[in-house]
């Protein structure tokens, strides 16, 4: 069954894959595509110390589930799960998981790509990148704006 939500702790990927295969093999699935996003340790030649994720809950979780349910209805798809982490994550930590099982690899790859793009563009999740050269709000598809001040705090240099 399709599932999607905001989570705080990392997922056990072996467990996720095993669970999906167990649920879908007997229904005719033969392919599973798993996308895993993780925090970059370097951006624009600057070292990243942390990526702080914030989600507008409960709406972000609801939208993730809606997207999973929508794409599970696509031809050949038997199961899709979408989980996005929040909190202060360090380089190398996993952030987003999109798993799609389908009857064919073509369907699995295509649907994983489409669902991933919709998650990135539609779900109200935001990130603040903390780097050696300052803090940057990440806006939309990778645009970065240097943070000028924090609420209630004095102007930052």
């Amino acid at each position, binding site marked *: 069954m399709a599932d999607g939500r905001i989570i705080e702790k990392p997922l056990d990927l072996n467990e996720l894959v095993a669970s999906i295969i167990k649920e879908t093999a007997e229904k005719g699935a033969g392919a599973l595509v798993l996308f895993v*996003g993780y925090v970059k340790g370097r951006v624009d030649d600057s070292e990243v110390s942390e990526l702080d*994720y*914030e*989600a*507008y809950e*409960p*709406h972000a979780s*609801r939208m993730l589930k809606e997207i999973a349910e929508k794409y599970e209805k696509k031809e050949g798809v038997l199961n899709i799960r979408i989980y*996005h982490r929040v909190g202060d994550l360090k380089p190398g930590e996993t*952030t*987003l998981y999109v798993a799609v099982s389908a009857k064919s690899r073509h369907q699995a790859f295509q649907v994983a790509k489409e669902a*991933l793009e919709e*998650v*990135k*563009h*539609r*779900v*109200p*999740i*935001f*990130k*603040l990148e903390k780097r050696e050269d300052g803090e940057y*709000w*990440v*806006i*939309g*598809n*990778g645009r970065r*704006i240097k*943070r*000028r*001040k*924090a*609420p*209630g705090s004095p102007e930052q240099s």
Partner: protein
Amino acid sequence: MKVKVRFFSILKDVAGRESIELELPEGAKLRDLLEEIYSLYPDLEKISGEEVGVIALLNGNYGKLDDELRDGDEVALIPPASGG
């Protein structure tokens, strides 16, 4: 009627706060709320025209300027999402 407005990401920094409660006349639309917000926080209007698109979610769904507001509604002002 009272409507709660929440700010996210860079918009929280620009407004200098996480949320505010507005008193609006009955029949007010999302467009009216934005006008009120921009008059309270001119920097938000400035940034929306120059650097970042300001998007309004009404009770968690992408809203339209003509959407009518009701007492107890929650409007979230967000920049383009950046999940992933």
